[in-house]
Every structure is written in structure tokens, then in C-alpha cells.
């Protein structure tokens, strides 16, 4: 009976998530490009062979992982600090809570364009500050070694509020009497953070890691606007590569292969990161 009741919802989910996935997997075994007149022709896994030998795919994978790992961990730290601060009672807290959310509410393309001009040489404010200090030009977006850090900064600025919000919600579920009991037993504030707050926040941290990792692996708009994947392809993400193949090169077969390939990578790395996180679980929690 219950099975029957969830059937419509299950069907809807299969329809919305399942069909495109199956279609992409199917397409990844076909040549479908401007050369074939966009007619899919089965090519016996040639796309997959090409993917495995495609240096650019692996370089982009590395760059996407690098971007996701650094931005998500930075976001987590900063968001925890913000959440702790916003969980305290002080005047003007509500106003600050609202302001903190602003970056999250801004459309990514708009803020990415903003960052592009902020980092602009010679007119961007960052360049002005660097000049004031008396240093030479910074040129962060023009250097293949540093441009990706600028994109991480843009991502951290935008999505930290999102994690802060999740963690704040988590903080509010921790009963105050736990802290009181802990203090009565002689624990310090610092100890309370590691023995109560963080262990109790674990499910929320896990949730935000999963959410953000999935998003960061699929990063597109921010990078497309800020650097367009350059310089020298140093900021190109898997999503940009898949997009280029589909929309610019009209090579839908190979684009699907890239998408399914990166999907597999993302699933594995998410599982791996949960595993890593669970290893850290051994931080001793406090219980009454």
C-alpha cells in the first residue's frame, strides 16, 4: 500500500533524473556531431577511449578537484566562525544575519563580473591597494599559476553564507543545558567547541560538504565569466569542457561522455570525502 502511494513521486523522479542520465549514457556510446549531421551513430566506445587518452579531460579533472577541495574547505572554516558568531546574542544580530546572506542572493554571473573588474589591472581596487603598498603589478587573473585562486576567492565569497546558514540551523538544535553541564564539570569554552559543538554539528557539516562538493564540481558560470577557462586553460573546469563540446563544437556524443565521466568521478570523490570525514569522527564527543 505504501509502495503504491509513493509511486507517483517515484515515477516523477525517475522521469526527471533517470531519463536524461540514461540518454547521456546512451549518447556517450555514439558519435553525434556536426560531422554526422547530428545523427547519432554507434561508435563502439570510441568516445570513452578518447576520454581516457584525453589529456585535457584529466587536466580539467585535476583543476576542478583542486578548485572544489580548496573552496569547500575554506568555506567550511569561515562559515563555522560566522555561524558561531551569529548564534551568540548581541545587538544588531538580525541585521548582520541578513547582510551575511547577501552574497548568496546575488546572481553568480553578476558577482563574477564584479570580481573580474575588482581584479582588473590597472583599474581594479586590488591593484590600487597593491600599488599603494608599493608592490609591482599583481595581475592575478593573467597568471596561470594564480588565476584559479582568484576563482576560489569568488566562490568562497559567494557560498560561505550558504554553509553558515546550514551550520547556524545546526547550532540552534544543540540544547543549552549540555554546555551548562559541561561547564559545571569544569570544561572550558574552547573544550566545549571541540567536545560538544563540532561533534553535534557533524550531520550538518556533512550535509553542507555534500551539497557544496556537488556544486563546486559542476562549477561553470563563475569561471566562464571571470576567466573563460584561461589563461592557458588553467581554470577550465569539467563543466566548461563539456559545455564547449556540446554548444560550441556541436559534438554531443563526446560532450555526453565528458559529463558521464565527470559524474562517475564526482560520485567516487563524494563517497571518498564522506569516508574521510567519518574517520575524523573519532574526535571524542561529550555526553552526560
Amino acid at each position, binding site marked *: 500500500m505504501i509502495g503504491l502511494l509513493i509511486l507517483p513521486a517515484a515515477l516523477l523522479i525517475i522521469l526527471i533524473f533517470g531519463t536524461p542520465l540514461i540518454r547521456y549514457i546512451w549518447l556517450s556510446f555514439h558519435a553525434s556531431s*556536426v560531422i554526422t549531421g547530428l545523427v547519432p551513430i554507434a561508435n563502439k566506445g570510441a568516445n570513452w577511449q578518447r576520454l581516457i587518452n584525453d589529456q585535457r579531460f584529466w587536466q580539467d579533472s585535476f583543476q576542478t578537484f583542486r578548485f572544489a577541495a580548496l573552496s569547500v574547505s575554506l568555506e567550511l572554516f569561515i562559515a563555522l566562525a560566522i555561524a558561531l558568531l551569529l548564534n551568540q546574542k548581541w545587538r544588531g544580530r538580525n541585521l548582520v544575519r541578513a547582510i551575511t546572506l547577501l552574497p548568496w542572493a546575488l546572481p553568480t554571473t553578476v558577482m563574477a563580473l564584479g570580481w*573580474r573588474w575588482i581584479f*582588473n589591472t590597472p583599474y581594479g581596487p586590488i591593484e590600487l591597494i597593491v600599488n599603494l603598498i608599493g608592490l609591482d603589478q599583481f595581475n592575478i587573473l593573467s597568471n*596561470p599559476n594564480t588565476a584559479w585562486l582568484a576563482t576560489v576567492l569568488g566562490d568562497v565569497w559567494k557560498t560561505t553564507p550558504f554553509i553558515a546558514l546550514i551550520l547556524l540551523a545546526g547550532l540552534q538544535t544543540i540544547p543549552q543545558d549540555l554546555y551548562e553541564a559541561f561547564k559545571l564539570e569544569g570544561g572550558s569554552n574552547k573544550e566545549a567547541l571541540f567536545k560538544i559543538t563540532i561533534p553535534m554539528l557533524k550531520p550538518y557539516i556533512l550535509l553542507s560538504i555534500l551539497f557544496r562538493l556537488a556544486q563546486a564540481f559542476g562549477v561553470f558560470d563563475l569561471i566562464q565569466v571571470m576567466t573563460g577557462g584561461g*589563461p592557458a586553460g588553467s581554470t577550465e573546469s569539467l563543466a566548461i569542457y563539456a559545455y564547449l563540446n556540446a*554548444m560550441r*563544437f*556541436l559534438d554531443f556524443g563526446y560532450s555526453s561522455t565528458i559529463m558521464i565521466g565527470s559524474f562517475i568521478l564526482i560520485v567516487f570523490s563524494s563517497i571518498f570525502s564522506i569516508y574521510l570525514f567519518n574517520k575524523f569522527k573519532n574526535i571524542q564527543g561529550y555526553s552526560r
Partner: protein
Amino acid sequence: MKPKVLFVISILISSFTFVANKSVAKTSPSKHINILMPAPFADSTKDLINKFNVENKDNIIINVTRGPLETESVSDLAISSLMLEKSPFDILLIDVTWLPKYAAAGWLSSLDKWITQEDLNKIAIGAQKGNKFKNKVYRWPFVADMGLLYWRKDLMEKPPRTNNELIKISKELIQKKKVKYGYVWQGRQYEGLSCVFLEVLYGFGGEWLDENGAIHLDKQPSINAAKWLKKLIKDGITPKAVTNYSEPESLQLFESGEVAFMRNWPYAWSELQKPSSVVRGKVGVTTMVAEIGNNPTSTLGSWGFSIIKTSKNPQDAFKVIKYLTSIKSQKHLFLKYGYTPISSEIFKDVDILKNSPIITALYKGLTVSEPRPQTPLYAQISDVLQRHLSEILTGDGEVSETMNRAHSISNQILQSAGSNK
């Protein structure tokens, strides 16, 4: 309460649509022609289209869909619509580089049945290029566009004609502290970089993709062209930051008066004449520089109209194209928005010659302009070139080695496509 409100709203909506449907059905037996244009073109053609719709209200009504501002986003939208079995559009305004790709995908109608050789001959030489695929015309030019060299009339008597002259003048002006930089162009890893490179490449007497489909990126002119661009940055003639510059950033720097030369498209001219521009009235326009013995060459931009294969009224669609590209429309768009005309007649028009200080420069630029390689695989090979040029401009690697790599990857792309045919 809530369901009630919803109910009332839905009744209102349905009655509105009913009324709207009825009124359309009653007053207009006319055919609708839908055009997708990038936002700036949709705005500037508004007057022309309103006029047409009033004059032809019983026959044809033009509906313009205002697309995104950025060129490639328009392409994304167009392609998404073309992927549907039935596109909602009859006409697309397309960029010169999209044509082979769209035509090869089988999305466009050939215009040959409506045009004669005589019509074609009336188009200025440069604008005649980039409209054909496999010897069939698929696109009628609307606005011409080409790379131009902007120079500061107040800092020099005449513009440089050769690569070395440009470097020499730049160095002198920087030394005299007249300007901070000599020459600014578009060095970001994007389509604009391919356009810049192509001009320099022709200036060195080279070629990117020849008529037989062979790539020439490993040849000496290609390597020299890349080396020259790198040298500009290394010598401080071009700011280092140019490797993330597209058109707006270059324009901003030139507008501030800190640079002697800029490579840009014709749109920059009217921007430079605005009151906020420091260099207003101090700017001249000419064709690109080249090595001694080679002709200056501009990369052809240009927009044109194509009719979509699934259009139900291609005949009427062509009438609309004819109207929008008529001499009268071209003049209006040139005088009001600075859109470079495509008919040679307008470049000789006494009125226009008197009123526009740059029409001669535009004509010269158009005459020497060349399209980018015309293959359905252009986007791929341009992407490869952009990546490798960006690597050259931002890294320390050996130029010839990087160009050789770009060459062999481009070759692979073309060959694997050929073997799939």
C-alpha cells in the same frame, strides 16, 4: 480563501488569453516572421521594424526576440532552439563564424533562389565573404565588422604601417612619458584572441587554414606572429594584464589616454567620441600594421541574416531580410548607431562621406578583411589556438614548441572528423 483567489486568477487569465486570441484572429490574417537577434541589434532595429509592421500590417508582422548581449550566449540560445524539431524562429541574425557549423548541421535554408549575382556584386568586397558554405549562400550580410587600429592623432603625425614602426613609436612615447603603454589588444583566452592573432599572422605573410584544409600553425610566419605578440608584452609595450583583456578592458585603457594604439572593432569609435572619453577628438582609425612587403589584413567580424529550414514562410522571411538590409535601412543604422554598411554604394555616398570621419577607414578595413577559417570545425580549432596562444603569452615555454603542439592537435581534430565522414 486561498483556493478561491487562485480560482479567480485562473479565470481572469483564461479569459484574457481568450480575448487576446480572438482579437489577433480577427484583425490580422498576416503572417508572423520571428527573428532572434542579440540584444543591441534588437534595440537598434526597433524603429525600422515598427515602421515595417505599420506599413505591412495586413501582410507580414515581424516579431523580434531580444537575445542576450554576449555573442556566444546568443549562439547557445539559437542552437538550443534549433535542436528542437521545430524552431520558434524564422530568421536568425548570425555571426560570421557560426555559418559553416549551422549549415553543416542542416539548420539553414539556402538563399540562392532569391538572389542574383547582381545582388551579390553590390555588396562591398569584404562583406561578400563568409556567407557561403559549399558554394551556396546561406547568409545575407547585415552589418560588417572588422579589426581596426586606433591611434592617437595628438601624439604622432601619421600612424605606423609596419610592425617595427609600431614598436618604435610606442617605445619613444613611453620613454617620453607621454603614455604608459604603447599598444593594447585582446589577449584573454577567448575568440577575440584568435581574431587578433589572425591579423598579425597575415601581417607576417602566413595562413591558419588553407583552402585545401591544411593547418599552417607550425610554419615560420605563425611562430613569428606568436613571438611578436609575446614580445609586445615582454617589452612593456602592452600591459601584462592584457592576457585577461577582452574588448571592454582594452577600450577602458585606451579611453583613459594611457595608451598610444588599440586594436578594436568599429563600435569603439562612437564610444571614444562620448564626453567621458579623455581622448575624444584625438583618435584616428586605420588598418592593421604588417611586416614590410605584406598587406595589412583585418579579421572579418560581421553579422548576417539566415533563414531557418523549418520556417513556414521563407519567402516572406526573405522579404524581411531585404527590408532590413536595404540601402535606406543601412544608412539609418550607420548614421544613428555607427553600424558599418555592407553595400559598396553607401561608402561612396557624398552625404555620408561628408558626415562621417571614419567611413573611408571603414571601407579600407573592410576591403582588406579576411574571414576566419570557414569550416564546421572552426570552434574546435579556434579553441585549440586560443589555449596555446594563452599559454605562450602567459608562460615561459618555447614558442615554436607550443605552436607545433597547437598544430598537431588541430590536425588531429580535422583528420578524425574527416575519417568519420
